């Protein structure tokens, strides 16, 4: 930690030196300002980046939070960002993804981590777009539970054929039903992390091999 502070101190003193030099040559009223120091960061394109300041992640345009993500997607994304930004290890990020994908495939994830929360904002009969949360809410109604405008529906996507919407079940009814690994891997975990990984140079193919469970090895094992 003291080593880290030393680097930061050196950089910040150089920042001070640089700003003093540059501002002494700028016209009156114009000033270049120091806006922040970040231990690590990556940029995807303009207006899309993530930086870490202490243990706080500053992110822009990366769709880091979507209300229909399950806890396992949010947690994995958070861990991936920390592996990259705090630990400086994209390789560790890949291992995190591989490990989560493996647990999902083995049926090794608790239901609480797979629950998707969505709020019902209108009468169920008024939804034109019948999404999974609407199907799950209707199933709750059929079971006698009260569902009205403002209710939070908690559902999971179970195994089976057919559209995802049709496989949305209230979590209260899902005990014993198997969740759909492909849905949680592709639509939740990989959706949450793939943009981040691609910004670090991992190709679509690299990410596909992670989610398929088939592994593209690296040469590291052969050195």
């Amino acid at each position: 930690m003291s080593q880290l502070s030393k680097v930061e101190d050196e950089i910040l003193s150089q920042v001070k030196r640089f700003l003093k030099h540059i501002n002494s040559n700028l016209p009156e009223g114009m000033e270049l300002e120091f806006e922040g120091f970040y231990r690590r960061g990556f940029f995807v394109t303009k207006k899309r980046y993530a930086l870490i300041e202490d243990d706080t992640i500053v992110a822009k345009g990366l769709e880091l939070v979507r209300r229909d993500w399950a806890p396992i997607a949010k947690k994995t994304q958070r861990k991936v960002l920390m592996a990259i930004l705090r630990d400086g290890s994209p390789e560790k990020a890949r291992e995190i993804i591989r490990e989560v994908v493996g647990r999902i495939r083995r049926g090794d994830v608790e239901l609480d981590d797979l629950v998707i929360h969505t709020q019902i904002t209108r009468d169920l009969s008024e939804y034109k777009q019948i999404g999974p949360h609407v199907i799950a809410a209707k199933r709750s109604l059929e079971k006698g539970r009260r569902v009205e405008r403002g209710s939070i529906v908690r559902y999971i996507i179970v195994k089976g054929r057919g559209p995802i919407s049709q496989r949305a079940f209230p979590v209260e009814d899902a005990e014993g039903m198997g969740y759909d690994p492909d849905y949680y891997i592709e639509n939740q975990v990989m959706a949450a992390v793939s943009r981040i990984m691609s910004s670090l140079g991992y190709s679509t193919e690299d990410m596909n091999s992670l989610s398929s469970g088939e592994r593209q090895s690296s040469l590291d094992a052969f050195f």
Partner: protein
Amino acid sequence: MEDYRMVLLDIDYVTVDEVPVIRLFGKDKSGGNEPIIAHDRSFRPYIYAIPTDLDECLRELEELELEKLEVKEMRDLGRPTEVIRIEFRHPQDVPKIRDRIRDLESVRDIREHDIPFYRRYLIDKSIVPMEELEFQGVEVDSAPSVTTDVRTVEVTGRVQSTGSGAHGLDILSFDIEVRNPHGMPDPEKDEIVMIGVAGNMGYESVISTAGDHLDFVEVVEDERELLERFAEIVIDKKPDILVGYNSDNFDFPYITRRAAILGAELDLGWDGSKIRTMRRGFANATAIKGTVHVDLYPVMRRYMNLDRYTLERVYQELFGEEKIDLPGDRLWEYWDRDELRDELFRYSLDDVVATHRIAEKILPLNLELTRLVGQPLFDISRMATGQQAEWFLVRKAYQYGELVPNKPSQSDFSSRRGRRAVGGYVKEPEKGLHENIVQFDFRSLYPSIIISKNISPDTLTDDEESECYVAPEYGYRFRKSPRGFVPSVIGEILSERVRIKEEMKGSDDPMERKILNVQQEALKRLANTMYGVYGYSRFRWYSMECAEAITAWGRDYIKKTIKTAEEFGFHTVYADTDGFYATYRG
């Protein structure tokens, strides 16, 4: 003869015995919040003529029997110019005669011929709406149509601002619900079943012909009575500001039409006048004399960047919570079915409460812009930011003795539209993970470029002998002195903002700090708008040369800064217009 004080809410003019009379609508906030209409008969409209031959011009103008001629020394894009100030008897004379004046052999051009009379008054008197005015006057009997609690005062002395801004304004929001079982609401056949009203005056209610078991519902006999009750509330409460959401294009036109069909009287104006809806470009604008009507929908479109601007969406964005939503095309079913109607009542009340909350949050900034730009809140809330900046400059031009350029002709406008200045410098980010990243930003890059390089249409020159700042890439030359008009104005704005921020730091009063913060925010918005105006096709001070020079210098400064940063060991990984991120490489 008495001294009067009132917060100026709105302004217009009427004609009495062929004389234009400026009407100032205000409330005595220091006293009993009494509404006052002040009449000022002393003001006359005028325009400027730029002569080719001064004496010949005066001679030709004499023959037109104008009210008054006066030679003045002014500046036209910085150059000293003798102009003739031509005063008219009545504002309606201006459009009739100005073309004849322009066509005179001895007249090179006419200026400031299209400034509305009431705006001219605000500019020349240096008063601004939503500030307290003081003047001497004589109270006279109000005309019979004026509502009984409104006092009418004839101004006898000078009208001036006390410098005190209005706070704690009375706000009332309203919203109508229509029963339309067959498609889009049609005022010819679909009735209004509810009008909700809510405000900071301790009033939250839904007026309807049903719902008497609900404590917030006020029951009336029929739709006509519903409309008249709404009018009664507005007249009785006399809010300073009446707000709606999409009320310019829907609620007020609908109410007006239904009232006409039903024979209901809707004389909401302080002077007994009716609701009046005018066309403004592609939109409508609905005015009520004395009560400032603000439609929050266009305000929110300007203020926020959202995918949709429904009331529900805006409310969620501002307050982080969802409000009640019902499907608009099926509201009539809620009205027709007893078991659903209560929900409709709650929805209607929720609409006006939400509208009021939005108003409380967003109006302070608009009030501050009203004071800055100096035009009525009714107009400011419907103006694009570029228009706000332009009217601000018109006011400043008067103070500086600078002639206001004319708006572009249709052909000028068309040829300008195709051109666009090159934007800021962007260095595409380097992919991958970077360590030890430093972020640098220029503070007010473009405004300070305008000021430091004296970028203005009046300083732009072809003169190779002048001492000039020369723009990179394009080679445009801007004289180093004197200070250009726009740079001077922006400089004032930035200085004032710094002063206010210092004052904020020194204040212990939370309310004062809040007020000062809104003020500096308004100045910031105005300054940010100002540097873009050179590129607006319709702008009076449009100058593609100035717009291109600003961004060219912007690119030059950030590129040079990045290069210097390299010498200090900072490698830029991403840059965008006025800032960059760099890693330190020692």
